[in-house]
């Protein structure tokens, strides 16, 4: 700022100068037309900026809290000991099948672990998280969950003020004792509160968790759960469980489509398996996965290339569901059209179904 009080106009505007400086600047501005005009213009900048709307797709905030919940559950799961992960369990199951198959066969078919009933990558292992472990057995946990849920329901009746744009806090001097906000990357902290999967299920069943029809995570999880079980069963039938024992990560791959074709008998390539493992919960991640599949498809052959091309479309449509951006939809449609023109397209029906679901 060219003028007589220079950069002090900005803190003067904010009331952040001490009494002596404030008086100096005020006296100067009173007698200086140029600084008075600058001060007015700076204030006008603030007013103009303060009125700037923040664009968000329609319905974006309806699903937001649910996506945060899923992310917390996912993060909690990833911090648990590896021994509870389904990949490990499936690998162990395969080993058990190989060693003591006759015994198991007498007792019925080997079942995949059901611990991922809520979220594919998040096995519900309450004993692995400290607060849940402190609660005790399942019954005690259930009682606690019911109690918390009832308490919260009563509380919600009292919570009439639901304005999400809460009024800005009054400006005031801040004593130095306030704990600073955690910087990113985050510092070491006390153990995080653990989300108990069972209580969430109970809430979801009663409709407490409001999930709009178009809520992407709900759609994805609803689609993927049965598909996941079917895929695991199929994997066992085809002997892939033994392969999973050698490469346990593959067993944990997300099964977004039950119609995925049988891959080469030699098994999926490491790069393909790595891509199968990538999860997308945000717009950026979905777009990233889409482009990763696209890049993979360029260098792949056979069934893997075909599956990759379909995954480009699938993750593109997921990006559209998350973003509401029509550019994502148009790109997915172009990808689908290109795929359906291919003579070697092995899954045209699956792609048509994806397109139909996106309408």
């Amino acid at each position, binding site marked *: *700022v060219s003028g007589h009080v220079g*950069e002090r106009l*900005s*803190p003067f505007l*904010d009331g*952040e100068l001490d009494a002596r400086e404030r008086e100096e600047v005020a006296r100067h501005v009173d007698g200086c037309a140029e600084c008075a005009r600058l001060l007015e*213009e*700076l204030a*006008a*900048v*603030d*007013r*103009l*900026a*303060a009125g*700037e709307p*923040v*664009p*968000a797709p329609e319905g*974006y*905030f309806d699903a*937001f*809290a649910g*996506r*945060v*919940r899923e*992310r*917390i559950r996912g*993060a909690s799961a990833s911090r648990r000991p590896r021994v509870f992960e389904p990949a490990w369990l499936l690998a162990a199951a395969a080993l058990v099948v190989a060693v003591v198959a006759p015994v198991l066969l007498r007792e019925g078919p080997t079942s995949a672990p059901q611990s991922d009933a809520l979220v594919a990558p998040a096995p519900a292992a309450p004993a692995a998280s400290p*607060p*849940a472990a402190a609660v005790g057995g399942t019954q005690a946990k259930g009682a606690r969950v019911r109690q*918390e*849920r009832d308490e*919260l329901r009563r509380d*919600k009746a009292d*919570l009439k*003020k639901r304005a*999400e*744009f*809460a009024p*800005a*806090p009054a*400006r005031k*001097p801040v004593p130095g004792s*306030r*704990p600073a*906000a*955690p*910087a*990113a990357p*985050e510092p070491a*902290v*006390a153990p995080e*509160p653990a*989300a108990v999967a069972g*209580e969430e299920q109970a*809430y979801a069943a009663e409709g407490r968790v409001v999930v709009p029809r178009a809520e992407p995570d709900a759609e994805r999880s609803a689609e993927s759960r049965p598909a996941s079980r079917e895929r695991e069963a199929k994997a066992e039938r085809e002997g892939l469980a033994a392969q999973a024992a050698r490469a346990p990560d593959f067993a944990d791959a997300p099964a977004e489509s039950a119609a995925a074709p049988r891959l080469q008998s030699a098994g999926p390539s490491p790069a393909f398996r790595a891509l199968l493992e990538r999860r997308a*919960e945000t*717009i950026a991640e979905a777009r990233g996965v889409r482009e990763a599949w696209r890049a993979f498809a360029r260098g792949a052959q056979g069934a893997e290339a075909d599956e990759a091309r379909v995954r480009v479309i699938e993750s593109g449509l997921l990006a559209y569901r998350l973003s509401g*951006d029509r550019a994502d939809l148009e790109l997915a449609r172009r990808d689908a059209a290109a795929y359906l023109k291919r003579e070697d397209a092995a899954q045209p029906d699956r792609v048509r179904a994806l397109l139909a679901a996106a309408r």
Partner: protein
Amino acid sequence: VDPGERDLIEKARGGNLFAFEEIVRRHQRRVFAVAYRILRRHDAADDVAQEAFVRAWRHLREFDLGRPFSPWVCRIAANLAVNEVRSPRARETPLPEGHAETPSSAADPLEGVLDAEARRVLDAALRGIPEEQRAVFVLRVFEEQSYQEIADGLGISIGTVMSRLARARERLRVALRPYLGPALRRAGGESGGRP
């Protein structure tokens, strides 16, 4: 923290994710707005806003119940947003063009056009200032945080807050000068209407 929210936070500290979800619903727009205004792109702001709540969940035991929750989680979001802007990934990805125009609320059509143009220029100007300055400007002008709060939250000195804010305002003033007339007139009308 109002009593209802205090209760929710205490429940969330005990591991009640539904209580935390209610907290998220109360503050989600504001946190997203902070992230968006710093990052200027929806996809990255979505990611940062979510992560801010995840961090808040993890650090909930450190939160001072004697203080409002919103500035705390907004500072987490601002920190994450600044880090995101500095990341190599963000540097490789150019900022998208501004979003579609939102309808003006001005009664006068001409003023409406000018408002829309001013918003477009404002958007471009905000994208044009360095992210560190933008973060300070957002926390001050939109969140009305004190210099001390901003300094604590971003881990910088009050002097740095002061200079970044002054530079940001000056750059914006120069860019927006042709459009400051209506804002100045409105300010004049408001002050003229006071007793």
